[in-house]
């Protein structure tokens, strides 16, 4: 049986990704081997991997693998335990991924190579940093040829960053809808008029969009040329533009979360201690924290786990979490934007190119703190359904249940009719018991909140 390419790996004739025995490999086409050798022998591979910019790989033996005709070389890249997508990152993560791409292009040019494509999917988050994963994206640099990846860089990186920074953070969702990059004419139309005064937006988005439209039906192959110096200027200009994108001062309901909760400092400390001790007992290697906010409790798992996926609905919270990760030089946490009522879906060709959030998640323990009431009351989700979701997502949970008298729950019900007669501790414990054994239970002193350690049967 010839190895089957991964469903997302079909666009590049240079090679394809396949999976065998739960390991990912990259098969390299013979036609591409010359470029691969250049990457390895020019010093570029060494330069990029030593900085942690490119995912390192080993050359694997092709024996025992039935490769299709025209493939003789197999690479085994370093394993990435959790792939995250650009539409799931915080603003600063996306910005750094853009800068990484440009820096890699600049480094490539110094070694006589260039990037064929600048898709944001070439980058993922790994050990706390953005890392370029498309090893076969390099080709020989031919002076005079324009950068064929330029259009893609603009629609994959510049358009979303400009829209998020100058219009609204929520426009990041467009990245999910436009996997091929946000169309520049759409970005141009959505950006505020003031953006025409920014040289970067003017050139790379507004004029670029119009240039694309104007020449879209052109029947003649034009001969455009770009000297190496001009190319370098282009990269410099793009870098300045990306660096100039600032996080907008958006105020959301979660930004000041931890100043606005109903815990006394003693209760907060108690919660931390209980959760820490339960995590230490479970000794998980990988943890997810759903509704992680700025990662305050997610960090408790870093003593034991080598991977912590901290997912939250609020882009400001995820951004704060990421900034804290950078300050701490955190190699364990991946801050992620995720709306649990509508998590990242399967996308792309035959809905197999970009896997949905839950199928990528492979953890031993989950944290669901101060979350259940938002799902149950904020989203009208019955408690049994909440527990069913948790059971599918991870084999064990530390979950917090605030009962209806809790002041934060009362806040959610303030101007609503209380239709939640089934929102009770009894119903919650029954729902948990359907899928899990409740191994531990702890009521936080003086509060209406109970912590549970639940292990899936």
């Amino acid at each position, binding site marked *: 049986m010839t190895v089957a390419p991964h469903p997302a790996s079909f666009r590049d004739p240079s090679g394809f990704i396949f999976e065998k025995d739960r390991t990912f490999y990259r098969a390299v086409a013979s036609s591409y081997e010359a470029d691969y050798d250049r990457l390895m022998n020019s010093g570029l591979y060494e330069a990029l991997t030593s*900085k*942690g*910019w490119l995912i390192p790989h080993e050359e694997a033996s092709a024996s025992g693998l039935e490769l299709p005709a025209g493939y003789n070389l197999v690479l085994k890249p370093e394993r990435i335990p959790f792939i995250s997508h650009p539409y799931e990152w915080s603003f600063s993560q996306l910005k*750094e*991924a853009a*800068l*990484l791409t440009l*820096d890699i292009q600049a480094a490539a040019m110094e070694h006589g190579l260039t990037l064929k494509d600048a898709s944001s999917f070439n980058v993922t988050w790994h050990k706390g*940093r*953005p890392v370029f994963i498309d090893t076969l994206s390099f080709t020989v640099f031919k002076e005079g040829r*324009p*950068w*064929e990846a*330029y*259009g893609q860089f*603009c629609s994959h990186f510049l358009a979303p960053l400009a829209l998020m920074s100058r219009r609204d953070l929520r426009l990041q969702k467009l990245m999910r809808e436009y996997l091929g990059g946000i*169309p520049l*004419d759409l970005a141009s139309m959505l950006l505020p008029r003031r953006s025409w005064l920014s*040289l970067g937006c003017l*050139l*790379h988005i507004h*004029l*670029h969009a*119009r*240039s*694309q*439209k*104007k*020449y*879209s*039906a*052109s029947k003649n192959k*034009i001969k*455009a*040329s*770009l000297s190496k*110096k*001009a*190319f370098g*200027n*282009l990269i*410099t*200009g793009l870098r300045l533009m990306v660096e100039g994108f600032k996080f907008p001062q958006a105020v959301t309901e979660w930004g000041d979360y931890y100043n606005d909760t109903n815990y006394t400092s003693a209760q907060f400390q108690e919660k931390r201690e209980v959760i820490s001790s339960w995590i230490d007992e479970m000794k998980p290697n990988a943890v997810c924290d759903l509704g992680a906010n700025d990662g305050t409790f997610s960090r408790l798992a870093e003593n034991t786990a080598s991977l912590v996926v901290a997912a939250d609905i609020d882009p400001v919270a995820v951004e704060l979490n990421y900034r804290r990760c950078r300050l701490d*030089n955190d190699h364990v946490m991946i801050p992620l934007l995720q709306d649990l009522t509508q998590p990242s879906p399967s996308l792309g060709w035959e809905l197999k190119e970009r896997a949905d959030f839950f199928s990528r998640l492979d953890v031993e323990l989950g944290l669901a703190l101060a979350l259940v009431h938002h799902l149950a009351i904020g989203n009208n989700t019955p408690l049994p359904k909440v527990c069913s979701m948790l059971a599918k997502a991870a084999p064990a949970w530390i979950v917090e249940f605030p009962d209806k008298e809790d002041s934060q729950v009362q806040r959610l019900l303030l101007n609503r009719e209380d239709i939640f007669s089934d929102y009770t501790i009894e119903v919650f414990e029954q729902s948990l018991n359907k899928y899990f054994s409740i191994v531990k239970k702890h009521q936080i002193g003086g509060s209406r909140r109970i912590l549970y350690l639940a292990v899936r049967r």
Partner: protein
Amino acid sequence: MARIFLLSFFCFIVFTTPAHAYLDPGTGSMILQALAAGVVAVAIFWRNLLGKAKQLFGGTGTTKEQNEERGGPGDS
């Protein structure tokens, strides 16, 4: 000089009738790159000039070397 060029290109591009955007957008990107590279060259020239002028007159402009020291992604 580059500004005049930019302005005329600007008018040329902005006031065109839209064609079919779903067809080949590759050409437009190629053309714009060349323009963008040219404009950036001028912008960098002016920036450096202003930076040197500031230094001369007692300011503390950041030089290219200082920018490079700040490092990029991947630096711990």
